[in-house]
């Protein structure tokens, strides 16, 4: 199998933006916040990865997580409860 090339900066930024956009689509407060935070922390941590196979592996992992997130955002929205979390309601 041919070794994967390191992702370009543009590809990485595009993946990050897609993950954040998908995170916003989650109807559940906790999952939404987690997806956003975890993606940001993971990208920040892996920024220093100079090693090409490691960077390519991290990028491939990120792409897989994006697919999972996209599917689950749809599933969660189909079964979203009527009442939202009190964290999302205006302070009384």
């Amino acid at each position, binding site marked *: 199998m041919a070794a994967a090339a390191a992702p370009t900066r543009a590809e990485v930024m595009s993946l990050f933006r897609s993950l954040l956009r998908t995170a916003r689509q989650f109807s559940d407060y*906790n*999952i939404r916040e987690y997806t956003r935070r975890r993606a940001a922390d993971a990208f920040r941590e892996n920024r220093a990865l100079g090693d090409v196979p490691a960077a390519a592996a991290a990028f491939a992992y990120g792409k897989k997580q994006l697919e999972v997130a996209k599917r689950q955002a749809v599933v969660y929205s189909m079964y979203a409860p009527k009442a939202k979390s009190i964290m999302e309601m205006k302070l009384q």
Partner: protein
Amino acid sequence: MALSRRLLLLPLLRRGGCLSASASPARALSTAAVPADAEQEEAVTVKGVRISGRPLYMDMQATTPVDPRVLDAMLPFYLSRYGNPHSRTHLYGWESDAAVEEARARVASLVGADPREIFFTSGATECNNIAVKGVMRFYRDRRRHVITTQTEHKCVLDSCRYLQQEGFEVTYLPVRSDGLVDVAQLADAIRPDTGLVSVMAVNNEIGVVQPLEEIGRICREKGVPFHTDAAQALGKIPIDVNQMGIGLMSLSAHKIYGPKGVGALYLRRRPRIRVEPQMSGGGQERGIRSGTVPTPLVVGFGAACEIAAKEMDYDHRRATTLQQRLLNGICGQVDDVVINGSMEHRYPGNLNLSFAYVEGESLLMGLKEVAVSSGSACTSASLEPSYVLRALGVEEDMAHTSIRFGIGRFTTEEEVDRATELTVHQVKKLRDMSPLYEMAKAGIDIKSIQWAQH
């Protein structure tokens, strides 16, 4: 395109406006209460309590939400790959079996075991039953004694009580006031006919982590199998069955963001530990636990273990930070708060606090917007304070006012801040109304008071 959309919207808006006018023609002169507006209609009313939305969840020791990545792994096995893993003659069976074995390998690698040592069950309670009753019954001719602690989970204590009725002897070791078991005392309690030592890894009520390596070393020296209930520990603290000398281990999926209804029993092969099966049937799971292995649940458990292995460091760091934030927030604003259990040997996602001079049930009733649990059983039928807190030597009044905060993977800083705010507000409100608190602030020692008999 945009224009036609806007034109469509206008009649809808007007129609909406007309509806509200026609809905209340008789109400213009009525003296009945004004109907609740749309925002309040989202409120949840359960058991006579009305809350504006779903409470924020801080009860991670009771159960955890299913991680979306786990759900994603499970769904195909509910939709198209629904075969029975024990069917040997067609694709459905083969793919189901392959998925089960892959999940088994994932669970095994999280604890440093061989996949052949993992047996899937319906949960940690069943595992504890198999471990305690199964081991002792298998070796009933030569081993008649069990050692456990007073802070074990109810299923272990109940299994031990059941064994006592069958004629076995059980030693319930006390714990120190910080919740840790005295290892020297444990070593002394071991007899030649001791068949099992059972000490849980992380306590579900107070979050204390027991010294597993030391206990495992002693048990290995004395040749006694060491069982640990690791339901709360799996995926949260690093577990290595060989380093810790563990012979049997109970694991639960729904404490690590997996599905409810599945768990696994670790049973050592070298030296081999034998158990008498508690479920009779077709001999599935090498005869240890008969019954069809629930493929979707098991796949979910495997996915949860894989995620936990990757995320353990990140989650642990985060839980530590959030726990510190919660503690500083609460202790910085109210005094006379006691932490139940050792702070050094603790899993950071579990914080059990007692608030002095506050009545427990009224505290919980005021905290309906935070989903927490109390350390006492006063929310259930009996008014007895929790046996775990009693074993720590906590006084009854403090045991009644204990609250257990659970912090997990999905807990946010804002939730911790809101929980702090709500707790502090409720505690201050109750203390303002409490004459005992007034007396304590005036310097009177409540214990020395001679209450007049009427």
